[in-house]
């Protein structure tokens, strides 16, 4: 089948819809500027804020002023509506990547929560809940909802899952992408990593000093070409290939040779049946950190050699919209293809050894195939190819995977035989249990190097998140330790296990409440059916954190600790 794109929706610092976004791109007008809405004490940091308050966004989205809604969901709702309206189609699946979820509400109201006041917003903390809130307002007959949370590659992974759903007949029309608002939590986190520039960011420039955070949302509506043509829908482009890999190098740094990024781009080309020379434009991850741009340049050189296509990072327009970036930038690629232009890589003036030379100004030319990159913490790397003419992708009926081996880590005595003191130095106890369970499951099942590692977690890495949140609130955003932040993202567990076992294969994480495990299993079963993988390691992780458990008990819920590893194999 060919996968057609029939709708896009974008919200970011350069526009509240796709028309505004296109206008800003063509006018080379950046949305990065002074912080006006977030209210962090680090107001000296430039950001790519969406120019409207929550109240204004609610009015636009038709949400009543009194309803508590994470800003992530508000941004997502506006962009999702645009995509559905443009496609004129009814969607039966919604896949929304996010990591921040409702953290903006939690950081505002934590003190009230802890004191047992204002309990109505507590549940909105969960990443999956912020997706469900959007879904409720969209009034579509969604049969399937999932929230991939692989940090900055979340939205591209959402689109890939959506494509696999179409190819396995699990959905007819999918709304997929991601949303992420700014939060003090991750602004401070990136600040402790010392990778935020105090000036507008300069991707791929010799004098780049880091990234600017942004916020926004971006979605695609995708369906089979056959379906789109049958209903006379306007086809904006096609998804012709995609791949998800793991750099398996470091929790926050990319490898020098860009191995994970290289594998993701190669994998996407291979699925699309394209030669590297057929790519006309690469929308790079290009965050403007010294490390990312050097590593991504190395990977681009390995893929394209001397025949480098036009490359630009649009993050100098929007800031780094983290989990939303893959969706937003995929939608920007569709606009670029429609209007035949390469968006400018703003603020670039000077190259340095090892760096690729981006398109500093807008180039007007026809684009037949565009490669879009999104890379995340933990080395979660994803590449997507958008084409003017689609590639024929295989189809299959969804098979059930066979559960080959299950380990639930209950006895702490043997953790040390699976996790060395050096490896576990930064891990919480529950993470150590998880790593031990994973290693046992892999070695005892004989699947030492699974084709996919997928984690399911309701709350994510809550111990480090709570530690970081409380430190941030108590210290008034000063002198924060980087380690808890680095380990706070939902994808910490799956990527950590890939790093420890040098596994470059598919790596993903789902946070969808109690349905997280069924999302993970749906993912691997579809990939098995399509012949993309033969086996997979599924991790179930949650940790018991007293402060959070106490807050949850106020709304009649509790957290349950779990560290369970299951090896699945293809059921032939």
């Amino acid at each position, binding site marked *: 089948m060919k996968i057609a794109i029939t709708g896009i929706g974008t919200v970011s610092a350069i526009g509240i819809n796709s028309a505004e976004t296109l206008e800003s791109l063509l006018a080379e007008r950046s949305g990065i500027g002074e912080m006006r809405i977030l209210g962090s004490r680090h107001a000296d940091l430039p950001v790519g804020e969406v120019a409207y308050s929550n109240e204004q966004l609610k009015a636009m989205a038709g949400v009543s002023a009194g309803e508590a809604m994470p800003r992530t969901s508000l941004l997502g709702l506006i962009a999702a509506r645009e995509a559905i309206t443009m496609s004129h189609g009814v969607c039966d699946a919604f896949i929304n990547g996010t990591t921040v979820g409702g953290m903006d509400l939690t950081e505002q109201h934590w003190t009230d929560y802890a004191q047992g006041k204002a309990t109505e917003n507590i549940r909105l903390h969960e990443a999956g809940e912020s997706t469900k809130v959007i879904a409720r307002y969209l009034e579509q007959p969604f049969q399937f909802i999932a929230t991939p949370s692989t940090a900055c590659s979340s939205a591209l992974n959402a689109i890939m899952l959506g494509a696999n759903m179409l190819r396995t007949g699990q959905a007819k029309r999918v709304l997929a992408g991601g949303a992420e608002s700014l939060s003090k939590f991750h602004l401070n986190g990136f600040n402790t990593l010392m990778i935020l520039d105090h000036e507008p960011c300069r991707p791929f420039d010799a004098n780049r000093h880091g990234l600017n955070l942004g916020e926004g949302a971006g979605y695609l509506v995708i369906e089979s070409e056959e379906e789109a043509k049958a209903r006379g829908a306007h086809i904006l482009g096609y998804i012709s290939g995609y791949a998800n890999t793991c750099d398996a190098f470091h929790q926050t740094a990319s490898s020098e040779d860009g191995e994970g990024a290289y594998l993701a781009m190669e994998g996407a080309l291979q699925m699309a049946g394209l030669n590297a020379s057929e790519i006309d434009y690469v929308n790079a991850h290009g965050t403007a950190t010294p490390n990312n741009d050097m590593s991504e340049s190395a990977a681009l050189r390995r893929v394209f050699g001397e025949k480098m296509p036009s490359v630009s990072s649009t993050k100098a327009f929007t800031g780094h919209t983290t989990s939303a970036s893959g969706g937003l930038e995929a939608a920007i690629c569709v606009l670029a293809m429609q209007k035949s232009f390469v968006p400018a890589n703003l603020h670039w003036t000077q190259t340095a050894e090892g760096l690729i030379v981006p398109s500093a100004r807008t180039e007007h030319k026809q684009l037949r195939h565009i490669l879009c990159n999104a890379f995340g913490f933990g080395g979660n790397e994803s590449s997507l190819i958008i084409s003017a003419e689609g590639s024929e992708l295989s189809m299959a009926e969804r098979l059930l995977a066979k559960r080959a081996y299950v380990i639930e880590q209950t006895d702490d005595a043997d953790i040390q035989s699976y996790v060395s*003191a050096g490896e576990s130095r930064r891990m919480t106890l529950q993470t150590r249990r998880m790593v031990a369970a994973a290693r046992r499951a892999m070695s005892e099942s004989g699947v030492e190097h699974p084709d996919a590692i997928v984690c399911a977690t309701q709350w994510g890495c809550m111990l480090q998140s709570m530690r970081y949140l409380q430190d941030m609130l108590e210290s008034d955003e000063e002198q924060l330790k980087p380690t808890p932040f680095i380990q706070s993202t939902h994808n910490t567990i799956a990527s950590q296990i890939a790093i420890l076992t040098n596994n470059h294969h598919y790596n993903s994480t789902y946070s969808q409440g109690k349905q997280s495990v069924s999302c993970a299993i749906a993912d691997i079963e579809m990939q098995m059916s399509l012949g993309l993988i033969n086996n997979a390691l599924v991790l179930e992780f949650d940790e018991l954190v007293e402060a959070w458990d106490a807050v949850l008990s106020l709304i009649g819920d509790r957290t349950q600790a779990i560290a369970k590893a299951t090896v699945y194999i293809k059921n032939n």
Partner: protein
Amino acid sequence: MEQLIEQLKSQIIEALNFEEMTPADIDSEAPLFGEGLGLDSIDALELIMLMDREYGIKLADPKAGKQIFASVRTMAEYIEANRTK
């Protein structure tokens, strides 16, 4: 200086979660990164934060840490020369 070095070793062990180590296990002259303790970029950020919190030293450029953190002794010398508390 020797007293500062000993204090610093304890602070490093705590900040970087070397649970099974004592100050006596750290050689004051040995490299902290690469060989020696084998620290990485996250540890460098933790050490920058440690200097801010304990000694009132703010480093704006993480790259500057490379020379300062060559060994516990070089770190102690830098702190002695630049501390504000």
